[in-house]
């Protein structure tokens, strides 16, 4: 007889209390084992809760969409054949159009006016090709990457759809938003235009965290 038994034996209903107590101890042990098993991988490290990782990824994407939907970005991602201008996103003056290769139409190419750098004399914006600082990269995103009018879920789905995004993986997308001179222009758009409000290096950090956490995008609410 141990002390425990002596103590429990001294109470009024020892016949039913002992099995109940044992059952309770077993239940606690069992639950502990189940919890330990679910929190440990083969290496013995505690894994991160998948649900919270997904939520973190979605929070990063929410920040990313604020940038993507800023006029400096989305003005060249129209869902029709007309580039936009200004913070009010009006159609580009003088009936400027997309054209067959997203670079304007004959006689009115994007590069008829937009060169490889912001023109401080005329005020016309410009950006260079990645490997040629004298060649202009100004053009529209393809129609399949039109974002104007999309909500976050629609934008996310379109962004990740390789059939629509030029066969880009999430990693490719992050690289595009990190290095492409036309994307970088949005942080240095020249006088009279509001740049993207958060610094580009902070945006890149958010992109990388989004990628690390699974590059999640919100699902469309079917209600």
């Amino acid at each position, binding site marked *: 007889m141990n002390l425990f038994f002596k103590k429990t034996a001294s109470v009024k209903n020892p016949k039913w209390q002992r099995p109940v107590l044992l059952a309770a101890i077993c239940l606690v042990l069992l639950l502990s084992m189940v919890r330990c098993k679910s929190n440990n991988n083969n290496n013995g490290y505690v894994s991160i809760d998948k649900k919270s990782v997904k939520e973190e990824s979605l929070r990063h994407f929410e920040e990313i969409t604020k940038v993507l939907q800023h006029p400096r970005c989305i003005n060249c991602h129209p869902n029709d054949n007309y580039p936009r201008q200004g913070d009010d996103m009006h159609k580009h*003056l003088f*009936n400027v*159009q997309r054209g067959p290769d997203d670079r304007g139409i*004959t*006689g*009115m190419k994007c590069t*008829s006016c937009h*060169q490889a750098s912001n023109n401080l004399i*005329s005020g016309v914006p410009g950006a260079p090709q990645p490997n040629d600082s*004298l060649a202009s990269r100004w053009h529209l995103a393809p129609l399949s990457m039109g974002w104007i009018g999309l909500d976050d879920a629609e934008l996310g789905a379109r962004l990740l759809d390789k059939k629509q995004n030029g066969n880009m993986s999430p990693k490719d997308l992050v690289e595009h938003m990190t290095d492409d001179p036309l994307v970088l222009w949005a942080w240095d758009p020249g006088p009279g235009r509001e740049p993207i409000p958060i610094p580009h290096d902070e945006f890149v950090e958010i992109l990388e965290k989004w990628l690390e956490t699974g590059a999640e995008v919100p699902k469309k609410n079917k209600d």
Partner: protein
Amino acid sequence: MIKFKINGTVTEVNDDPETPLLWVIRDSVGLKGTKFGCGKAFCGACSVHVEDQVVRSCSFPLKYAAGKSVTTIEGISDGQELHPVQKAWIEEQVPQCGYCQSGFIMSTVKLLEKNPNPSDEDINNSITNLCRCGTYSRVRKAVHKSAELIKKEQN
């Protein structure tokens, strides 16, 4: 010094690389047919060709013309006979004051090289130059006339 070809002749200028090509053409090279209109690439009075493309030279820094071939209104004919577009412009009596017309003609030459039989819609979409005299309907007629004349010359 920046070297480029203008109307087939190699030219070297000592202007600031940021100088708009328009002012290099007018003041350093001395060709006055290309006009200053708005200075913001809106109106197209300053249109010239750089290589194979129409550009608004008021918004085209000289540095981007280095090593390239530039054509102005003075260079579209061979020096003996007017270009078919210029002939059409005269036949249809397009200009009123005439100030912006060299830009219209430069845009039309390039349009017809790429699209020899443009519809009215093609013309409206491609020739976005501005004319304060309102010569647009005559411009459209002259573009169609130019297309006819070019076809005749080719046959």
